[in-house]
């Protein structure tokens, strides 16, 4: 799928901070080569090249969000903060509207997919029922199927049943493919959960509801959060499936795609950069609070 690579990396980074507690602290310093040999510069040079290659599109997007462009944002015309300050002013706020739609769709699809997916994951790991392995396999299919096929197939079904295409159809489509990712992520967490803990909860007078709320759910939470972030990232930058099922509703990726033919306005760069910065900030906050908590614990002794 299209931009999921980046989204996945950001989410993985966030998720890692949840579990990094044990892995840290035992990092030995790398041995340094003594003489100037090819092996001492090939690796760094390769790493730098790879990073440049990865970061060029992001850097380009970010820099051109400050371009004092007119209609199309292709050649550099001078530095300005205008676009950042008046994001919604252009084209009667079309950019902002598309962005808001994407956020609403992402949030709703994420909430629904996370709830359903978590329930499915618990059922698949904990209970033995007929067609259990068959269902696990079917849940993998949406991830393996090309998005074009999913999008087109779904669009055909909506057409056949006469469902008008609007926000709701987009949300349904996104929920559908997000569930698979949630199930896979949460399933791993459920499988690593020691059943003895829930038994201890039941033994200590916890009713099934209380045991779920006080023992199972808190222990699954890191997995559920990771799944939700992944879902949101997938939904937010999905274009292909959305394009098939959106009718006239504009989402942010769709807006960019459509305006690409007549020149993407710098305001789109602003929003894209803002989203990127927001994700970076999120990762940083998670890392820093984690480090602070560790230091606090270390001090407590």
């Amino acid at each position: 799928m299209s931009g999921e690579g980046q989204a996945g990396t950001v989410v993985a980074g966030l998720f890692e901070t949840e579990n990094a507690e044990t892995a840290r602290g035992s990092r030995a310093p790398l041995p340094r080569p003594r003489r100037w040999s090819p092996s001492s510069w090939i690796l760094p040079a390769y790493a730098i090249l790879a990073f440049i290659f990865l970061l060029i599109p992001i850097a380009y997007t970010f820099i051109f969000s400050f371009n004092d462009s007119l209609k199309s944002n292709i050649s550099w015309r001078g530095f300005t903060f205008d676009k950042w300050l008046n994001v919604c002013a252009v084209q009667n706020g079309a950019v902002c509207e598309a962005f808001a739609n994407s956020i609403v769709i992402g949030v709703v699809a994420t909430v629904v997919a996370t709830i359903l997916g978590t329930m499915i994951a618990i059922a698949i790991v904990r209970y033995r029922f007929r067609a259990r392995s068959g269902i696990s396999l079917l849940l993998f299919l949406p991830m393996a199927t090309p998005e074009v096929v999913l999008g087109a197939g779904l669009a055909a079904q909506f057409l056949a049943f006469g469902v008008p295409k609007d926000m709701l159809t987009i949300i349904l489509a996104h929920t559908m493919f997000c569930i698979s990712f949630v199930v896979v992520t949460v399933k791993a967490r459920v499988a690593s959960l020691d059943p003895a803990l829930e038994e201890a909860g039941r033994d200590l007078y916890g009713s099934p509801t209380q045991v779920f709320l006080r023992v199972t759910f808190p222990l699954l939470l890191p997995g559920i959060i990771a799944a939700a972030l992944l879902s949101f990232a997938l939904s937010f930058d999905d274009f292909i499936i959305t394009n098939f099922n959106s009718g006239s509703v504009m989402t942010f990726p769709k807006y960019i795609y459509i305006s690409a033919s007549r020149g993407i306005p710098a305001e789109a760069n602003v929003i894209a950069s803002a989203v990127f910065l927001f994700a970076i900030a999120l990762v940083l906050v998670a890392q820093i609070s984690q480090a602070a908590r560790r230091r606090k614990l270390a001090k407590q002794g």
Partner: protein
Amino acid sequence: MAASQFADSGADLTLVGIQKRFPGFTAIEDLNLEIPAGSFFALLGPSGCGKTTTLRLVAGLEEPTAGRILIGGKDVTSTKPHQRPVNTVFQSYALFPHMTILENVAFGLRRRKVSDPVNRAHEALRLVELDHLAARKPQQLSGGQQQRVALARAIVNRPALLLLDEPLGALDLKLRRQMQLELKTIQEEVGLTFLHVTHDQEEAMTMADTVAVMNKGQIEQMGAPEALYELPHTAFVANFLGQSNLFTGEVVESTSAVVAVDVAGIRVAVPVARAQRHAGAVTVGVRPEKLAIHRDAPPADSGTNVLGPGRVIDVSFSGVSTQYLVAIPGAGTIVVFSQNREFGPISHVGDDVWISWNVEHSFGLADVPDEVQRFAGDTDTKSIAAQRREALIAELED
């Protein structure tokens, strides 16, 4: 069940015809057990004999395939774990990793809405000497500390019936003795019923009112520790609880007072009341510390069993006592414990000696020890196959 109050006394536990089958494996077969209210009951047995499974059945974490469980006279077979007035100290501790030690201990109190859970939890933690670590998470504790938290978490609820699955296994000797004392005090003060699983025979015998020895999903023998030790009924109990010297022979004499068997031409007698069987091949046993070593043949006497002469093949000093291994032709190798009343051993390797003991100290077993040594937990497929084959051969020969 009124689970919102602390139990003011223990409840009795009755297991009737319990059977537990796992897919392809019967862990417990026809288990009958009665534990009176307020007693300290210890369950001993080799690894894999079904002790944990028994506790899980009582706690409600496992459903019996057949049979009934009664706690305080009420049939709880079909009730859920949280409805039973029972708490468990789990063999694997099972502390909640996302809660502090304090919250772990207060968990049961909060679920039952007991007043002032925090102070009660602190009190329980003081009992196991861990109150200073109340704010930590379980991962930040040592194994022994975690075990003590598990103990506090169960005991703080003062349940009518407390199930302890090797609750002191990870503690050093001093701490273990101390915790044993604490447990016994709590149990006696409140009059709770304890069902205690342990590998430590000494622990079982010093703490429990009643000890049951379990083997392959069944109770082989139960009774007061002293009775169990002095009068084992089966070869398994005789060897599992302490050590025993066992002699098997045909009964050659049976009067109203004694039964005597022939062991390599020597008469070995056991009082009729202490023998489980009185005819055919009978195994007679005696504890190593009941034996006396003689350098000269002791005079024959109807009240004494004498074996010998034999040769001392090993002498090992262990502080309070010395252990001698004496090889007697026809009777096998005999273990003798002798108190070190004098400096130095009373005989040396290579000496020819006689062994004697009071007939009253013999016990007659209901079965004959297996030729094939049964190791604890011999439930891997290979040994099961071997046992099946042996059983089949024995059946075909009949």
